[in-house]
């Protein structure tokens, strides 16, 4: 087990190196002066040609792309993630301010999308063909088709503007004012979780329908167990195995969604930081965000793979 985790961690490091390198490479394609990766266009205009040349040499821009990449990487390990010319701040500092907000949002969205989605899927599978199935399936199918930024806008219009029940934008830390924080988070979290919830429900339904046809479920019936026990004890664990796989991938979707939702609800998180940085051509920030998001996604996938063992005793780690 421990050797497995170590093996996976080494793999994860490798994947992260590749990912950051790919993004680094993509950003080098920016038309124009490669200094743009480090300085804003206005800064460049302000400097004299000699100063620019000096900056280029300091940054190693006259060397190959690999050299530069590893230079960046070396700095990252020393805690120097570069400077943001747009925000006039240290990248690591910026990210550490924004990250907790997005993680809080994301964890909530992940929790609700799994619990509600899986429950909907179970209900639909157990009541297959009945009205409950029709409603749950339709809800799930609709949930995966809603453009979440649009849903956010509609919810603002209904619950924020017309009914005035919920604040329409912003973020408050739950440690400052838990109640206000929660009220502000209701709409963003619903938007963020809705897609994953739908796909969890769909997948749980199909997987559950597959499992309840298995021989061991017939055995469970033949023992005289109640339907509830059969579903929750005998079928659920088996049918969650494929769902867990997809849940690992959904961390990506939640991060992707956070970009849109933080924009709609004006939440100061990683998503907005990344969008602002991308538009401001603030590439050191982009590179930093890519690394952090990559780490989180890769780590969640590792957790998912380990949780297989808990669900399925047949899985062996070697």
């Amino acid at each position, binding site marked *: 087990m421990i050797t497995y985790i170590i093996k996976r961690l080494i793999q994860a490091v490798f994947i992260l190196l590749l990912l950051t390198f790919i993004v680094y490479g993509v950003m080098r394609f920016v038309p124009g002066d490669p200094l743009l990766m480090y300085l804003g266009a206005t800064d460049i205009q302000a400097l004299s040609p000699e100063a620019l040349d000096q900056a280029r040499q300091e940054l190693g821009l006259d060397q190959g792309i690999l050299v530069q990449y590893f230079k960046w990487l070396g700095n990252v390990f020393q805690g120097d993630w570069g400077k943001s010319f747009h925000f006039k701040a240290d990248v690591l500092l910026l990210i550490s301010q924004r990250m907790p907000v997005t993680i809080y949002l994301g964890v909530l969205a992940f929790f609700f999308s799994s619990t509600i989605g899986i429950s909907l899927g179970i209900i639909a599978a157990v009541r297959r063909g009945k009205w409950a199935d029709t409603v749950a399936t339709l809800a799930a199918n609709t949930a995966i088709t809603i453009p979440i930024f649009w849903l956010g806008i509609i919810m603002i219009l209904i619950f924020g503007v017309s009914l005035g029940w919920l604040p329409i934008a912003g973020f408050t830390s739950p440690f400052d004012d838990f109640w206000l924080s929660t009220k502000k988070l209701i709409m963003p979290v619903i938007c963020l979780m809705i897609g994953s919830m739908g796909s969890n429900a769909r997948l749980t339904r199909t997987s559950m329908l597959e499992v309840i046809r298995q021989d061991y479920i017939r055995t469970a019936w033949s*023992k*005289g167990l109640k339907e509830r026990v059969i579903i929750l004890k005998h079928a659920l664990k088996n049918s969650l195995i494929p769902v867990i796989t997809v849940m690992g991938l959904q961390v990506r979707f939640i991060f992707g969604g956070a970009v849109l939702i933080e924009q709609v609800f004006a939440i100061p998180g990683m998503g907005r930081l990344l969008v602002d940085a991308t538009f401001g051509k603030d590439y050191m920030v982009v590179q930093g965000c890519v690394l952090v998001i990559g780490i989180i996604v890769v780590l969640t996938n590792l957790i998912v793979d380990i949780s297989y063992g808990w*669900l399925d005793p047949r899985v062996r780690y070697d």
Partner: protein
Amino acid sequence: MALLTVENLKTYFHTDFGLVKAVDGVSYEINEKEIIGIVGESGCGKSVSQLSTLQLITSPPGQIVDGKVIFEGRDLLQFSANGSEMRSIRGGQIAIIFQEPMTSLNPTLSVFQQIGEMLELHLKMDKEMQRKHSIELLKQVGIPDAERRIDDYPHQFSGGMRQRVMIAMALSCNPKILIADEPTTAVDVTTQAQLLALMQNLVNQYNTSLIIVTHNLGVVARYAERIYVMYAGRIVESGTCDDIFNQPKHPYTIGLLKCVPRLDEAEGTKLVPIEGLPPNLINMPSTCAFLPRCPYSIDKCREEVWPPLKRVNGQYVSCYVDTRR
């Protein structure tokens, strides 16, 4: 009064290819402490008839459309399929062992969890008792090192061992009837004999009646007192084990016996397979389903409907032809 009487049971399935009359008017009975065999080719409805008695048919596509299953004076088919009366019968009064030991045990629950939950349900045992009793059961079915293996998962057992676990599970609540649905088809021949001997032993010990469902006449020959032969969803012949083996009357039974090797026959006797294929159960003609494969057929077989069972010298046969001539 028999312990279990099945009357005119009919179970049909709707498939993409049409209506399948898997069980079409089957009647049989079993007495206390009796061992009977139900024999037929795969697809003849023998398993479905057993699942029907416990209402374990998935609906849709299947449905029990007619019949009675009288157990201790009550018709089980009158109970709602998954209601509390039906559930107390399943596992508690009538237990069933399935064909595929590899897939019939839940892969994500330990053996103890799977046996224990039955003891808790039907015998209301607490966890400690469950454990003691489960270990006892595993020892009885011959699983070595039962104390340790009880917490293992099914995939850690071999096929034969899993079937032993199934037997332990089925007998755990001391049922009145044990249905063994092709219990030994998926295991090798040596294990087969051991498992059958084990089952015979245990049902004697527990005073349980045993229904052995199989496609192999050889399997039931040693154990069953009476035999029912099924073909295409119906019983075509029934009688005591001796009668069936010594004086088979239905052409199908005769054919079956000719393809089983026997020790009491002269050396050099050839095994003869039954010609043709088992019938397609969709849109069957109303005449005898064995007709296309029957070497004894007469004109009457082609003109009249499938004959009902009729008594001939203590046996029941559904055939127009007197095959003794």
